[in-house]
């Protein structure tokens, strides 16, 4: 015989916590211990330096000279100075050109073309093609810069000049005659692989039946891409644009090693300008203000991308 005893709900609550609450109560120390170190590291190495950078941007701090001994709060003077400085505005313009042609147009378009080509079943040697495109991505930035410095070298021994010579061309000082074009091409070369990988993954998620249906309805390849594929991969495309914008605005080593912002400031993108001001001219206050302005611009661009993509990041 079985005897059933009813226990009042209130008594249950009093004697035992509910399962989800108990789980929460028992796991939070574990979560805290695991997340704590990361949170501390982020706080110490990212948040605090950023806040300190913001503070520096409001001072006339210098790294060297007598001025380094007695920095003063100058309010928004550094921002006013920069936003009325032809040099800084010019560097923002150079950054815009570099970003537009190397990342937004170059990497994105060519990355998409490469991804589409690699998704075609009739393409042979995909492994070789994919590896060739991926290679620039794994080469360290300094090595890539030195390699391209050799390719674009002024002397007749430069790789590109040797190639030109085969066709009877005269040696050209590429980094002097077309410096912006040179760094744009090098950045496209370097960033193409990441774009291709992201777009390849996105294209694989496009249902084949939708494309098939569009073709049955008589759509041509371009129409299929424009009206079916592209809308379906809009999220990854804008996510890529967001990532490449952030990374391209932050490009420093590639340009520094190839042109150092020259000749005559023709490739002085914002990262080079900030480096010069903050570390070469020792004006860390102005350099910090320039960094904050650049950060705000990137955040605005990022917000636009996120809104256009309607993706969660």
């Amino acid at each position, binding site marked *: 015989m079985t005897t059933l005893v009813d226990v009042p709900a209130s008594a249950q609550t009093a004697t035992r916590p509910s399962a989800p609450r108990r789980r929460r109560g*028992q796991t939070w*120390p*574990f979560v805290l*211990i*695991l997340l*704590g*170190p990361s949170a501390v590291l982020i706080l110490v190495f990212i948040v605090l330096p950023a806040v300190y950078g913001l503070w520096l941007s409001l001072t006339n701090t*210098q*790294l*060297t*000279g*007598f*001025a*380094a*001994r007695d920095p003063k709060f100058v309010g928004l003077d550094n921002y006013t100075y920069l936003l009325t400085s032809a040099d800084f505005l010019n560097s923002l313009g150079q950054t815009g050109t570099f970003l537009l042609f190397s990342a937004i147009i170059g990497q994105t378009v060519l990355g998409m073309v490469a991804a589409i080509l690699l998704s075609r079943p009739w393409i042979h040697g995909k492994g070789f093609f994919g590896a060739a495109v991926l290679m620039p991505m794994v080469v360290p930035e300094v090595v890539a810069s030195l390699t391209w*410095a050799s390719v674009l070298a*002024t*002397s007749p021994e430069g790789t590109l000049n040797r190639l030109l010579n085969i066709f009877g061309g005269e040696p050209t*000082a590429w*980094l*002097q005659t077309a410096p912006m074009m040179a760094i744009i091409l090098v950045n496209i070369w370097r960033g193409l692989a990441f774009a291709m990988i992201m777009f390849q993954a996105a294209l694989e998620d496009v249902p084949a039946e939708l494309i098939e249906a569009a073709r049955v309805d008589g759509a041509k390849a371009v129409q299929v891409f424009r009206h079916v594929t592209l809308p379906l991969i809009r999220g990854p495309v804008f996510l890529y644009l967001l990532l490449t914008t952030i990374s391209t605005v932050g490009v420093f080593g590639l340009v520094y*090693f*190839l*042109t*150092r*912002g*020259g*000749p*005559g*400031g*023709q490739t002085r993108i914002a990262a080079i300008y900030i480096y*010069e001001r903050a*570390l*070469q*001219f*020792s*004006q860390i206050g102005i350099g910090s203000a320039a960094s904050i302005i650049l950060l705000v611009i990137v955040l605005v661009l990022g917000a636009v991308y996120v809104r256009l993509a309607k993706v969660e990041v």
Partner: protein
Amino acid sequence: MKRTYVAAAFTASVVAAAGLTGCSAGGGDGSDGSVTITIMETKQTNIDAISKEIPGFEAEMAEQGKDIKVELIADVLTDEQFMTKMTQQLIAGQAPDVLDIGENMAISWSSAGYLAPLDDYLSEWDGWSHYYPAVKEAITRQDGQVYSLPSGAGVLNLFYRKDILTELGVDTSQPETWDELIGRLVEVKEKTGDTPIVIPAGTAWGGGTWGEGFMPLLGGTDTEFYDTETDTWDLESPGWLAVFELYDDLVSNGLMPVEDLQNPNPWEPTKYEKFPEGEIQVAAQGTWGWKFDWGPNGATPIEGLVEKVSTWQFPGLRSGDKPYGWSNTGGGYAISEDSENKEAAWEFIKYLSTGEPLAEQLVASGAASARDDLDDVAPYSEEPQLLQAGEDLGESVFVVTGDGAAQIGQAVASATELILSGQADGQQAYDAFVKDATDLLGPTLVKE
């Protein structure tokens, strides 16, 4: 559940241990009374020279009952890279105890308070009385104190390929004026098609554009560009424009290798390739060219150097100017203000700045002695070019400057870059220079 806590505790311990390990750093003081000091060198010849002297110093200290060890930090860098890197370390209090620095660094860092004044040490050292008065003047900073002791001194002149010019039938006597020299350079260009002269210019050459190019030209025609009374830069002093116009003349006549000068590391194609090959025939160069650049163990040795190469003094630039050499003495060994081993560091500097150890370093780097008692000390005594440079030092020109030298150097580099890239003539470059320099120096460092 217990297993969960164990895993969590283990993870936390590993992270904490890793963090603490990262925080630990090597100490300088030994608990047994021994002291380890650090010195940083960024040029291979200096690295080799200093590493050779360290055992002798440690042995001498041991004889005196002092247990002092020296750790050499060898990091081959350009002056610009070194200054950028070391500025951060000095601010962070992580700089080596002993630094081997250039003049601009001595000015910039001493005024910021990053270097220890050496006056108290110098006043108790009998070696100090042997330094030439002109050297003492050059290394005394605006606040009247000395922060660096020169390891050597140099005289900048125009080095020229005597063999090539003679073969071309071009006059090799000392040119009295720049007009006369430009006439000869044009003759060389017509006969060879080369760009016959290199003077540091542009941003790619870094601090050398100012220290080894523009400043020697400026100081030879105008010593009033820095006002020591007010510690300000006189940007309206007439020499500035004259030098920018000289650069413009050289570039517009096709006499300077403008493309090479706009590439990163411009000294490589010019001083290390074309001058040794005879494709550049004249180069603005310091005494160290005899060893550091073109000597048997230099960057690019020129076989038969003393037969093939000779020197001219810089010609006069403006009416009434006479030929001159430019002395370079403003840097040297310094002690970081945050060093915990200043006494030991000073002992090492004294050792490096005396007798045979100094003579060996001077020969290795190709510098003249800043002291009057070294001419008979081997191996320095066996180097006629260096001895001659030492003699020339007394007659050479030098202008003592102060805070803002690094900023002036940057503004000059940018303005000469405009000339190299064809974006400005001499006057326009000067105007751009004044604007940049005023901007970089701020109102307190520009003479009204």
